[in-house]
């Protein structure tokens, strides 16, 4: 069975700007994948490429092993919400769904089902212009669910939701995936999806930073020691000689993984490097996310 979603060396340029560059990743069925990166990282563009709304400059974007446009009855296989504002303000919520019911190949009764699913029955006959951002998000989700799809693609769905709404969305997505279906959800905040996702695809400046199960990312954080010294080059070289390869440089600060602080102290002493600060970090996922997607300093 082909992967539910696959990006294969996906590249998209707009004039001189490369929005997505050589991006490759795959999604397995039955998982919730967080698609993370700062604003402007290329998340929305990637989703548009996957959904056939934009043509890749190079590479391929496949859904269930085929380009989106070649799917039979795509509404029954993929539900997507790209922007909460993709609604006509003069149309009622129910009419938005009535417009889509024929092309989703569903009977009118399905409209009430999805309205109930997103808890929007009460507002269904009001015009969308009176909706809050959260209600628009839920209406968008209701439309995506019309065809009872196997894959949900959501772009920043938590935007505009209150904490209760975020929690509702989390429970909903977990339940959706528990049925063996797949969720691909973007966010610029890891914390927003950390409790929802099984794995993450993190991009920055259109490039893949990391594709990993959330557990692996968490494990990677353990035992990071931040070391500040006057001579970080010498210390880094000394660490390397003792077989510690996992170091990162950020100006004068070294971040060392997998070695305890006292051992680093010994190595520094042997290398004759004075340390001004040694801190064992109890890092959060958010830290690592920010670090992975930090602008490179020049």
């Amino acid at each position, binding site marked *: 069975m082909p992967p539910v979603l696959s990006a294969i060396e996906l590249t998209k340029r707009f004039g001189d700007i490369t929005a997505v560059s050589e991006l490759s990743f795959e999604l397995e069925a039955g998982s919730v994948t967080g698609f993370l990166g700062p604003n402007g990282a290329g998340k929305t563009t990637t989703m*548009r490429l996957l*959904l*056939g*709304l*934009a*043509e890749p400059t190079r590479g391929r974007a496949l859904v269930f092993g085929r380009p*989106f*446009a070649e*799917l039979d009855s*795509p*509404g029954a296989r*993929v539900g*997507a919400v*790209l*922007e909460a*504002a*993709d*609604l*006509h*303000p*003069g*149309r*009622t919520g129910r*009419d938005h769904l*009535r*417009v*889509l019911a*024929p*092309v*989703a*190949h569903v009977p009118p009764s399905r409209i009430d089902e999805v309205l109930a699913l997103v808890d929007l029955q009460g507002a269904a006959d009001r015009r969308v212009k009176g909706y809050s951002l959260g209600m628009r998000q839920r209406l968008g989700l209701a*439309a995506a669910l019309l*065809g009872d799809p196997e894959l949900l693609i959501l772009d920043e769905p938590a935007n505009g939701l209150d904490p209760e709404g975020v929690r509702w969305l989390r429970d909903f997505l977990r339940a959706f995936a528990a049925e063996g279906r797949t969720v691909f959800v973007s966010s610029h905040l890891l914390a927003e999806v950390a409790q929802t996702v099984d794995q993450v695809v993190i991009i920055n400046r259109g490039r893949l930073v990391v594709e990993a199960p959330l557990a692996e990312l968490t494990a990677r954080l353990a035992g990071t020691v931040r070391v500040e010294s006057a001579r970080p080059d010498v210390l880094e070289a000394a660490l390397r000689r003792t077989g510690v390869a996992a170091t990162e440089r950020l100006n004068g600060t070294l971040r060392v993984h997998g070695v305890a602080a006292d051992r680093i102290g010994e190595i520094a002493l042997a290398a004759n490097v004075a340390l001004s600060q040694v801190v064992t970090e109890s890092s959060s996922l958010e830290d690592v996310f920010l670090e992975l997607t930090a602008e490179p300093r020049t």
Partner: protein
Amino acid sequence: MTEQLRSELRKLRTTRTVPVLLLVAVALALLGAFAEGLSPTLGELAKEDQQRLLIGGAATNAALLAVFVGLLAVTGEFRYGTIRVTLLFEPRRRLVLVAKLAAAALAGIVFAVVCVAVAFGAGLSILAARDVGVALTRTHTLVLVFGPVATSALSAMLGVTVGALIRNQVGAIVALSVYSLAVDALLFATVPSLGRYLPGQAGNALSGLPDAELLSPGLGAAVAVAWTLVFIAMATLRMDRSDI
């Protein structure tokens, strides 16, 4: 295809845009009928050409507003982003375009049926009220009934294509208004031998308006259809190629 057409027709029915445009068309048709029916002298009004102008002029308001039905049906989708939702459920863009053309054409036909009825109703009432006999020939009457229907359907389809080409709602409205006032009408007024081949004047000919410089209704129909096909081809290319 039928599902997409049903979807497009529901889009037209579920906002206030189309009813408002229809009301404007009816109001303009009434206004036109009164202006052309009450201002001429009895002698003038007895002439067939004036009666054609009275009824045909009122009926062409259907086409005038139907073009905006098509235009807004497409630019509204781009303005509010619903085009993305539309293409997620039906990624075959040509099929979406064809469904939009068909839905707009049907709306154009409805507009024309209403406006033709209003034009004949108001026009014949005015003639009766001023005690002027009906001078319309059978042929001209047929053209005045069916011409505006065809013109309005084509006009709504042209609106769809212009919307697909320009996409920006305000830009498209401005472009279309400037075109019809400054290019189409002006060129016909100054160089009628060329201007009569423009879409607006071809539509006027097809609608049966009495102007010696216009093409015959049959030729007008051919030219209007040709323009519509050219614009459909351009709109198809634009929809095929561009990112949404």
